[in-house]
């Protein structure tokens, strides 16, 4: 009899503890669906109309497992900071200034901050979202080096990418995401695939396909990795 009562108590404790475990970060997917899906698309596909592009409030996450580095996600979710200076679609966050268009900071909202357990659980759940795997060639990036000055020359003078991306805080364009942290944030094979054809991932995105040569794709990722070692953050 005693054994039966102890077993019942054990079951009761388990049933009470399970929701707590979920609350403490045990079920990242449940958190994602309940807390993140208002602003992030967890199922796809990416917008196929301009209206859809304008209405997107946060990055699509249905291919997060092919895009992000898990360690970075865990850390960023606990201390989020803006990566796109003018938000997801810059057109929603600009206004006319005295000398031209400026970012309208009042329209940009901070990202919610998660505790460490939740951040860990959500990052793990995100890594399971692997749409568009056919666009990734695992191991395509071959680590190498390029000097920062040569990288900048390619990124700015030869290809004009600086027009839309910052290569250090306060230097570069504002409509695209900063690139000085991109190698910390994103998987190298994803970077190569995305730069090769941004529209394959996001049909209406306002990043042009520059028809980069394969060896230049590799060099750009070398450059981004070099930039990330500068610890500009």
């Amino acid at each position: 009899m005693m054994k039966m009562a102890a077993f019942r108590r054990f079951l009761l404790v388990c049933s009470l503890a399970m929701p707590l475990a979920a609350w403490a970060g045990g079920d990242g997917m449940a958190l994602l669906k309940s807390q993140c899906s208002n602003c992030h698309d967890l199922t796809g596909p990416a917008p196929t109309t301009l209206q859809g592009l304008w209405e997107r409030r946060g990055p699509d996450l249905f291919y997060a497992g092919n895009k992000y580095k898990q360690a970075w996600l865990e850390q960023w979710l606990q201390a989020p900071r803006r990566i796109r200076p003018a938000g997801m679609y810059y057109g929603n966050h600009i206004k006319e200034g005295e000398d031209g268009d400026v970012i309208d900071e009042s329209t940009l909202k901070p990202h919610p901050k998660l505790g460490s357990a939740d951040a860990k659980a959500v990052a793990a759940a995100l890594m399971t979202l692997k749409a568009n795997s056919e666009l990734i060639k695992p191991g395509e990036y071959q680590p190498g080096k390029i000097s920062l000055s040569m990288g900048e020359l390619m990124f700015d003078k030869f290809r004009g990418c600086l027009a839309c991306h910052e290569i250090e805080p306060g230097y570069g364009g504002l409509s695209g995401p900063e690139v000085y942290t991109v190698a910390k944030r994103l998987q190298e094979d994803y970077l190569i695939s995305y730069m090769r054809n941004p529209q394959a991932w996001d049909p209406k995105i306002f990043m042009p396909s520059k028809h980069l040569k394969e060896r230049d794709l590799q060099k750009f990722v070398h450059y981004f990795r070099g930039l990330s070692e500068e610890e500009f953050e």
Partner: protein
Amino acid sequence: MMSKGAVMMNGLLLGLLLVWGLQASAGERPADIYKTYCWQCHGMKGNGNGINVRDMTVQPRNHTDAKEMSARSDEDLFTAIKKGGQAINKSVLMPPWGGVLSDEDIHGLVRHLRKLCQCRHGGGA
């Protein structure tokens, strides 16, 4: 013989199909394409003062400048948009948009540029 109700239902279905067909083939409006892809450098007013210009070595074209814009043919504008500035010996900062915009979209953009400058090639409004 179809009943009156069946005729009405067929008419309704035909109407819905027509509306759907028109929407599917409508494409995007040139002003919306301009807002999405061009504002970032050329600005909300098209005057070349977009949010990205701060650190540019070459100022984006002012699309409201009739004198400058009338010096460009529609064909040059089309080529610059589709293949990038370098295709007409201009800046690399103007990227090629041919990977995201169709030829029809680009022709629409050229018409939109002519509205912004209120000009045509060779001068005159």
